[in-house]
C-alpha cells in the first residue's frame, strides 16, 4: 500500500505503546505493564480498525480491541467475564464478521485526511464531554475493596438463576437467542421450489 500516511501512523502507534508500557512500569510495576499493554491493545486495535482502508484488516484489528478489553477485565479480577469476552467476541463474533467480510472486494478508496481528522476531533470531543460530566461525581472502587473472584462454577450458575439475581434477564436473553436461531434456520432453509432445476424445462 503506497500510502504516505501509513508509516507515520504506525510509528506513532508504536511510540505511544512504548510510552504506555514505560509509564505503567514506572507507576504500578508489573500490573502497570499489563495495564499499559492492554490499553495499547484496546485503543490501538480500534484506531487501526478505523484507519485501515482494507475492510478485512479492519476486522482483524478488532481482535486486538477484544483481547485488550478481556485483559482489562482480567486486571479487575473478573476472570469469567474476561475469558467469556475472548470466547464469544474473538472466537465467535469476529469469526462471523470475517466470514462475511472476506468475500467482499478490498476497498481501496482514497482516505481523506480531513475525514480522519474530523472523526478524531469528534471522538476527542465526546471523550472530553463524558469525562467532564463523570469527573467528580463518580467514586472509583480500588482493587482492595473488590470481592475475591469466584472459583466455583456453581456460584456463577447461582448468580444467574437466583430469583434475587439475574434470572429474568438471563432467561430473556436465552429466549431471544433461541428465537434468533430458529428464525435463522427458517430463513436459510431450502424451500421445495429451490430444489427443482431451473433449466429442466430448457433441456426438455
Amino acid at each position, binding site marked *: 500500500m503506497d500510502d504516505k500516511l501509513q508509516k507515520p501512523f504506525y510509528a506513532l502507534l508504536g511510540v505511544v505503546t512504548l510510552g504506555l508500557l514505560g509509564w505503567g512500569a514506572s507507576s504500578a510495576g508489573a500490573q502497570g505493564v499489563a495495564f499499559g499493554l492492554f490499553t495499547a491493545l484496546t485503543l490501538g486495535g480500534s484506531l487501526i480498525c478505523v484507519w485501515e482502508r482494507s475492510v478485512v484488516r479492519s476486522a482483524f484489528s478488532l481482535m486486538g480491541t477484544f483481547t485488550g478489553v478481556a485483559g482489562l477485565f482480567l486486571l479487575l479480577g473478573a*476472570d469469567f467475564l474476561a475469558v467469556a469476552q*475472548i470466547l464469544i467476541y*474473538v472466537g465467535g463474533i469476529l469469526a462471523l464478521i470475517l466470514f462475511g467480510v472476506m468475500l467482499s472486494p478490498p476497498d481501496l478508496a482514497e482516505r481523506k485526511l480531513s475525514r480522519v481528522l474530523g472523526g478524531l476531533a469528534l471522538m476527542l470531543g465526546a471523550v472530553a464531554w463524558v469525562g467532564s460530566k463523570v469527573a467528580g461525581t463518580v467514586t472509583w472502587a480500588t482493587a482492595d475493596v473488590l470481592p475475591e473472584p469466584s472459583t466455583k462454577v456453581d456460584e456463577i450458575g447461582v448468580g444467574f438463576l437466583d430469583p434475587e439475581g439475574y434470572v429474568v434477564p438471563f432467561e430473556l436473553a436465552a429466549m431471544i437467542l433461541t428465537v434468533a436461531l430458529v428464525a435463522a434456520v427458517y430463513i436459510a432453509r431450502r424451500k421445495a421450489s429451490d430444489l427443482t432445476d431451473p433449466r429442466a424445462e430448457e433441456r426438455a
Partner: protein
Amino acid sequence: MSLLTLEAAAGGNAISELLGGIAPEGTPTWAIWLGAAGAAVGLLVAFVSLVAMFSVWLERKVSAHIQCRYGPMYVGGWHGWAQTLADGVKLLLKEDMIPLGADKPLFVLAPALVLGAIFGALVALPLAPGFFFADVNMGLFLILAFSSLTTIGVVMAGWASNSKWSLYGAMREAAQVVAYEVPLGVSLFVPLMVAGTFSLTEASAAQSGWFGMHWFIFQNPFMLPAFIIFFIAALAETKRAPFDLPEAESELVAGFMTEYSGIRWSFFFMEEYAAMFLMSAVGAVFFFGGYHSPLTAMFPDEATSGLLYQLVCAGTLIFKSFVGVFVMMWLRWTLPRLRIDQVMSMGYKYLTPLALACVLGAAIWETIFA
C-alpha cells in the same frame, strides 16, 4: 487466586523465586517478573516443540504401520527417531518466501498468532498437582477460548495468502470451527456438572478415589456419549481427518497453508500437534481421571509431595494424552474425508442436539442419584 496474580503470570513461584535469588540487589520487581515470564515462555516453547517432534515421528510410524510399511528407519539409528529433528533443521534453513500478492503484515502475523494461541491454552494445563504454569480458575474455559483464537489465525493466513486455495481453506475453517465449538463446549458440561469447577487441577484431584480409578467417565451413563461427542468435536476443532477440510490436500493443494514454506509453515504444523495433545489432555482430565491412575494411588499420603510422585503423575497424564493422540492418528489413516455439507449437517443436526440431550440427562441423573 486470580488469573493474573504476579506469580501465576510469571510461570509459577519457582521461576520468579529462583530469579529473585540470583538477581543483584535493587533489581526492580517488574524486571524479575518479566524475566520469569520470559523463562516460562521458553519452557512452553520447548514443551510444544518436543510434543510436536514426537507426534510427527509417531504419526509417520502409525501411518506406516497402518499401510504395512516401516516409516522412517535410518536417521538417528533406532527406528528413525531423529527424523523429525533433521526435518526441523531443514525447515529452519529453507528460504523465507512471501508471495508478491500477499498481504505481508498479516501473512507474517498469522503463523505467530496460531502458535501463540496454543501457548496461551497450554498455560492452563496442569501436568501434575505441583507442576503447572498457572493454576487458573477458569482453566477449561480459558483453553476453549484460546483454541478458538487459532481459528482467527488460520483465517488470517488464508486471506493474507491471496490465493484461492488458501481462501477456500480459511472459509471452511471458519464455518467448521463455529459449528463444532458448540458441541465441544456443551459436551464438556457433563463432566463439569460432576466436577463443579473449571479448574483442571481441581477436576483431576476430584478423581483420586477408588485406587485412582474414580474417573468421571464411570460417574453416570451420559459420560460416555458426551465423551464421544467431545472427541468428534475435538477432531473438527483441531482440523484432523476426517475433518481436515481446511487443508484437504486432494482438493485444495494444502488449503490455508498453500503459500507457506519453511519455518512459518512448520508453525502451523506445531500448532496442529500441540492442539491434538491439548484436546486429548482435556479429555483425559475431564473424563479419564486426569493424572490419577492405580499407579499414582500406590503412593502413600506422605509421599505425595515428593518429586517422584509429581513425575509419575505427569507421566500418567502425558501417556493418557498420547493415547488420545494415537487414536486421532489411527482415525486419520483409516477414515475418508467428509464433504463440507456432511461436516455441517453432522455438527448442527446431530452433535449439537445430542450434546444438549446428554447435558439434560446428566442433570436429571445428578439431581436424582447424587
